[in-house]
């Protein structure tokens, strides 16, 4: 069913009885050409682009729980491409461009809203770093504007500009950044993939890989063995655990990242903001909830929940930036498990096992990467060669020295 204003009118006049489920619930077949492990944003996007861009429809997506039940349902929905390094810029800008046409492409309302993102700075060295990054972005064809204090004061009257310790001096603004509805992105891609013949199989956990002679020939699952010519693993957060089943060790640690949302409030924050002097970032959802978070808890975890000292640190950052947030009540707080890689950048690559492909190491930036991540992995699986936009995201880049370390923090995952 194609969605349109006419369809809404027709359904409204007939008691809304004609809406159909977004996708089928097929039984898994014995064998597929391609099996995608993981039904999160990257998994369903990969399946969608395999079908759409390469005409490969003998594809199954295997999901342990329900579609979008992992990090796709736990992130804070920010999209942006304000990166410094060439290995990242082309990729994230490609993703940004896909976001801009996503809803028309999918015929699905993903609530993409380009309300802008601002990284605040509070002193001269930070201003220099922001200007440098902005210039690097502009050179790569990405929009970047250095805002001064007065421009920010007009945009965000709620911030404490004269904080004694961390006065706001300005910010780097990417106007095309913004937010999108996290679940709707997964649902839109899933619907698009399903309509092109991809089997989306939920409640089907992969428990092993069928690897013989260095070639991956399929997967073992809780619903039986499924053969495949090619297997693509998109399970960021659990990459260590799943790729461990294939006997591979990765340059990744799993960490917990927490986020919070307040009760619904009137519009107060225009866009997404990162505080430059503490671990705090914030945006406001269309429902009015102030969505905010900060840094990792900092230790390996698969628990999908964190500890209170980190929440306290995040809230201190929030109070320093916008004291009014102290009057808002937090409705929910949660944690997600993220793949922290050794240089803070992701992987889209083949593996030493023939026919086994891997995407992961998305750190806390996997959501905005969903369109390009899916597109580039589909390209790699279909053609055997990396997509130019993701050519630097190799698994062996630590051995070769071609790391993509945005923060210059070295091989210490909890510092990225």
């Amino acid at each position, binding site marked *: 069913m194609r969605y349109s204003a006419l369809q809404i009118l027709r359904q409204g006049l007939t008691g809304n009885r004609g809406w159909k489920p977004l996708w089928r619930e097929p039984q898994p077949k014995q064998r597929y050409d391609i099996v995608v492990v993981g039904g999160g944003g990257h998994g369903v996007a990969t399946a969608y682009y395999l079908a759409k861009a390469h005409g490969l429809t003998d594809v199954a997506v295997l999901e342990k729980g329900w579609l979008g039940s992992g990090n796709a349902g736990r992130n804070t929905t920010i999209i942006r491409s304000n990166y410094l390094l060439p290995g990242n810029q082309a990729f994230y800008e490609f993703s940004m461009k896909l976001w801009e046409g996503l809803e028309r492409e999918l015929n699905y309302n993903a609530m993409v809203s380009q309300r802008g993102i601002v990284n605040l700075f509070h002193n001269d060295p930070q201003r220099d770093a922001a200007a440098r990054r902005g210039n690097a972005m502009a050179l790569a064809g990405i929009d970047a504007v250095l805002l001064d204090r007065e421009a920010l004061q007009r945009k965000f009257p709620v911030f404490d500009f004269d904080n004694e310790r961390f006065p706001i001096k300005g910010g780097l603004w990417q106007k095309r950044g913004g937010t999108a509805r996290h679940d709707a992105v997964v649902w839109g891609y899933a619907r698009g993939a399903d309509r092109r013949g991809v089997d989306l199989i939920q409640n089907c956990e992969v428990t092993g890989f069928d690897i013989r002679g260095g070639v991956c020939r399929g997967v073992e699952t809780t619903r039986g063995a499924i053969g495949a010519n090619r297997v693509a693993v998109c399970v960021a957060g659990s990459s260590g655990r799943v790729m461990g089943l294939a006997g591979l060790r*990765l340059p990744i640690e799993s960490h917990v990242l927490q986020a919070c949302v307040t009760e619904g409030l009137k519009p107060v924050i225009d866009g997404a903001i990162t505080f430059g002097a503490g671990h705090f970032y914030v945006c406001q959802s269309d429902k009015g909830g102030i969505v905010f978070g900060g840094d990792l808890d900092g230790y390996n975890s698969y628990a999908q929940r964190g500890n209170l000292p980190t929440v306290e640190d995040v809230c201190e950052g929030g109070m320093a930036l916008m004291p009014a947030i102290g009057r808002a009540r937090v409705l929910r707080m949660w944690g997600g498990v993220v793949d922290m890689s050794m240089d803070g950048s992701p992987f889209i690559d083949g593996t030493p096992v023939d026919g086994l492909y891997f995407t992961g190491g998305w750190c806390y930036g996997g959501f905005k990467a969903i369109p390009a991540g899916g597109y580039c992995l589909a390209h790699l699986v279909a053609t055997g060669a990396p997509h130019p936009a993701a050519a630097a995201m190799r698994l062996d880049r630590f051995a070769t020295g071609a790391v993509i370390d945005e923060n210059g923090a070295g091989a210490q995952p909890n510092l990225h």
Partner: protein
Amino acid sequence: MIIDHPLLGPRDAAEFVYLGDAGLIDRPDWQAGDAARRFDDYLHLRDNPAGEHRELWFHEQGDRSWLVVTRDTLTHEIVRVELARDVALARGRDR
């Protein structure tokens, strides 16, 4: 999380800084023929288990000792805490 320090007793985990897998104690031999490969392995590749994990914590806001904490990454339950020095000596290092 509460880390039961072998010398100081139970301390809040917020006093500590986390480094990572306790395998970092076993620094490779820099003179070995395949030292480059071994250091790549040592610096970058991790088991990253879901379950029991031995890891290094530094008591920065305390006595500045390094500890080897055995902790379940699924529940955050800490099952054992040792001085990293004792662990390193037991593995044959000289300090």
